[in-house]
Structures are given as C-alpha cells and as structure tokens.
C-alpha cells in the first residue's frame, strides 16, 4: 500500500474519531495540532486505525510514536 493511500484512509479515520471533516494530517502532525487529541482519545484513535488497516500497534509503538509520520511508518511496515 502506498503512503498516499495510507494517508487517504488515515484522514478518514481521524475525521471520524474527532468528528471533524476538515482534519487533514501529515508527517509532522502531532497531538498538539488536533483539538481533543488527548491520552483518552489517543487510544480510541489507535483502535480505529487498527480496525481500518487490520494491524495491531505494539505497546512500544503506542507510547513511542511522536507524530503522524511515525504512525504511517509503522502502518507501512505492518500492512
């Protein structure tokens, strides 16, 4: 799956989880850039991404990822 394709599906997940159709994420997007992306919503977001791509984030990845770029790297490796 190409990175562009991952981003297309990932944007839809973000829009669904945060209830905002205008959200567009990129490699540098962090939790500080998205309204409501706190530790509670983070885990909901990861669960939604896991469902979307049929992958599982390891605990190491869950706590280590610093931005969306690293998240996409992980998805790229797993799918």
């Amino acid at each position, binding site marked *: 799956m190409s990175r562009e394709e991952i981003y297309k599906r990932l944007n839809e997940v973000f829009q669904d*989880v945060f209830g905002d159709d205008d959200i567009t994420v990129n490699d540098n997007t962090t939790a500080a850039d998205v309204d409501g992306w*706190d*530790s*509670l919503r983070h*885990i*909901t977001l*990861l*669960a*939604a991404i896991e469902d979307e791509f049929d992958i599982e*984030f*390891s*605990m*190491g990845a*869950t*706590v*280590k990822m610093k931005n969306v770029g690293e998240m996409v790297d992980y998805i790229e490796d797993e799918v």
Partner: protein
Amino acid sequence: MSITSFAFLGFVLVTLIAFRLFPVKKQWGVLLAASVVFYLSFSIVGIFVMIGTALLTYFAAIWVQKYKDSLSEWIKENKKTADKETRKSVKASYQKKQKLIVAGTVVISIGILFMCKYYKVLATDFNDLFNTQLWTAENILLPLGISYYSLQLIGYLVDVNRDIIPAERNPLKVILYGGFFLSIMQGPFNRYNELMPQICAEERKKLTYTDFKFAVLKIVGGYIKKLCIADQVGIIANEVFTNYTKYEGLGIVFGVVCFAIQLYTDFSGYMDIIIGIGQLFGINMPENFRQPFFSRSISEFWQKWHITLGLWLKDYVFYPLLKSKAFKNLGKRLSGKVSKEAARRIPTYLGMLILWTLIGTWHGAGINYIFSVGLLQFLYIFLGELCDPLFARIKKLLHINDKKLYWHIFQSLRTTALMMFAWVFFNAKSFIDGLNMLSRMVVFPRLKSLSDVLSSDVINGNKFRVLIFVIISGLMVFAIDLLHENGKSVRTIISQRKYPIRLAFYLVLAFTIIIFGAYGSQYVASDFIYIVF
C-alpha cells in the same frame, strides 16, 4: 536527613564537589555512594528492600533481554526458510515467556509495596469488621520511597520488554536508578532512558556561572515556597483540619484555601529544590508541575499536576489495560448494541475508572484517599464529558465566547473549586471527618468564623497580619505561575537586569528566608506532604 536541614545542604555540597572532581565516566559511582548514604540516614533495613527490588528487576530484565536476543537470532537464521505463520507463532511463544517474567516481577514488586503500605490498614479493618483479633495488625516498616522506586523499576522492566531500551548489564546502575537520592522521596518519576544516559554520560558540560546561578535560584525559590509559604500557611490548615469542630462556615473555607496553597507550594517547592540540585550535577529531571491552577478542566489539571505520575500511569497502566484483549472484546461486543461512539467510549471510561481507583489507592488505603483523588476525579471527568453537549448548548444560548479571558478565568476558578472540594476529604483524618467539615461549612455559614481561626492559639500575631500574609503568599504564587503561563521565567527576567538590581533581588530572597522562614534550632521543618505516599 530532611532536605530542609543544613545537614542535607552540606551533604549535597560534598557530593557535588566529589562528583565534579571525579572523571566523568566514574561520576555515577559518586551518585551511587551518595544515594546509599542518603538512604542509610533514614533507614538501614529499608535499603535492603530497595536493593532487593532493584536486583530482582535487574535479573528479570536480563532474562527478558536473553529471550529477545534469541528471538532476533532465530528470525535472522530462519528469515528465508520459515513462512509467515511459523515466524508469527515462534514470536508469540517468545513473547509469552517474556510476558510471564514481567508479570511475575510486577506481582512480587507490587506485593511488597502492598504489604508494606496497606497490611496494617487491612488487618485493622478486618479485625474491626469481624470483631476479632485473628489478624495481627503490627506495624510493618515502610521503606523510604517504596511507592516511587517500585513503579520506576517496573517501568524500566516494561521498557526493556517493549524494546524501548536494552537491559542494563551493570546491576549497580539499576540500583542507582531505583535509589537515586534526588528522586527517591517524592519523585519526579524518571524514565530510565532519560535519566541514566545523563548520569552515566561519557562527557559532561562544565558548570558555567549562568548554569550555577539558574540552578541556585530554582533551589532558593523552592526553599522559599516550602519554608516561607507552605510551612507557615500549613499552621492554619492543620489547625482547621485537626480541630474543625471548633470552626464553621468561612473559617473552614479559609482552612481549605490555606491547605491548597500549602499542598501546592510544599510539593512544587520540593520539586524546584530537587530539579535545581540536579541541574548543579548537570542532570535535567522532568518538571512535575505546570501552572495547574490555570487549568480549564479537571483533565487538564491532572496533565499539569504531578505530571510524571500521570504519564507513568498512562504508559504502564492505562494504555496496556485498554489494549488488552478483554477491553478490545468488550468494545467489539458493544458495537451493534450501542452507538459507534458509545462502543468506543465505554471501554475507555471503564479503564479510567480502574485507573483513578488505582491513583486513589496509591495515595493510601483510606476511603478518603480512594474517594478524593480517585473516584471523585473520575466522576468529574466522566460527568464533564457526558455533559459536554449540554454545556455547549448553554454557552451558545448565553452567547459565551470560550476564547475570551473571562471564560478562561471562570473555568480556572471552577477547576480550583472542584479540586478544593476533593482536598477536604484528602486532608481530613477520615471520610466521615471530611463530610462533617463540609456540613459545618455549609450549615453554619457565619463570617465571624474566619476571625475564630485567625484568633486560635496556634497562630501568634495579630489577625490582620496573618490574613495579609496568606493573601500575599497566594498572590506571589499566582504571579509566578502567571509569568510561566505566558512563557516567561523569573530566573530569566532577573538575569537580564543590571548588577545592582540583581544584587537587590538576591538580598530580598535571602532576607525573605531569614525573616519569614519557619526554621531555627527549636524548629523542625514539617515533612513534605507527599513523602508519606
């Protein structure tokens, strides 16, 4: 050796000189020796429990690492020959063994912590409940810092298992991590991969005059918070909480406000001293407070209060819980039966409920702790989220612009009031005492009661002076936090001024401690509040 004693200052000075005289590669040895001496100054038996826990964690981490290395070797050798399914099953079998080692170590560490911390309370409650003396409710020694080093060491082992860090080969370094004298009493919760590379650095920047000045200002600021504000305001808080039946209405409210100022200046003052001393050694530890009273909500408050405990619980309890099979299955079972959003949120709230119960229990076994800094906090956050759509509608109806300053001030005051309500129970001797205090506060709202508090025997001096002192203390703390909230720091502002102004400022600081500080040969500075947790 209390950190407010001259003995501690002498101890830090000697350690710092030895640390700076030793070659950089061996400096961690100085800190290990200092940590052992520091621990021994409190307890001889306790140090064996601490070292035992550290060694247990050390061996468990080495064992986990051995499995990880064997797995990597196996994958390397069989990458081409083994199919995906075989690789997956071999990986799962290794991970299962690793998980068993981690789980066993966690159970033992938490078991020791539990026995030391809660045995007596449980035994007493059991005997009272069944009116028996079957369970001997003896005092068990509570090793210094057990709540802190146990959790830090568990974090280290889990990080090894999560591939965040490799297992440490030198057991002495794991002991130093657990027993580091600056963070063992009240935190901050350091992460192994953040603290130890600084302590065991190959090279270290020389301590410049500016570094020294900044560190000393932070330390002095911490001592002012502790000795001049927390211990002074604490006299009023202690009087009201201990003898609350003598007071009512505004008098009790005043006592609770004093306790809030005491708790914040006591805990954050301690952190400033410890972080400042760390900077003298060239070690940067994480901040534990970030202007919590400016928080717009309770969840934001907990992201700014005791920050490192919150982050530890998030990474090592909350996330693993929500990512566990049981929670995932719960989410799957709910989908279809409730809305998509509810199916996502219910497991999260259940995880939060468990987390907050644990936070309450970590503070102590009493119901007042489990309620005030546990279940009540959960309720605040849960109800806040639940009522969010309603609040949004009310705001729209009243044309409230939530970007405006007045709304921020209202939200901060609301957060502070909710936390003060919780702290009534937190500092009360028991849950029932907390309830009684609240009822006396509401049922007898007499203004004169404030005067009763200010005239009590423990407060020497005239009422007006005491009241002014509390107001100035509160305003000082507020002003410093306001500067920080706006990205400015007192240390930077002062260092940019001309020498006479800087000198005048330093003299004011020195005289503040000399004149207003609670100390002297007859005086024993109160223990820091969080030391008992």
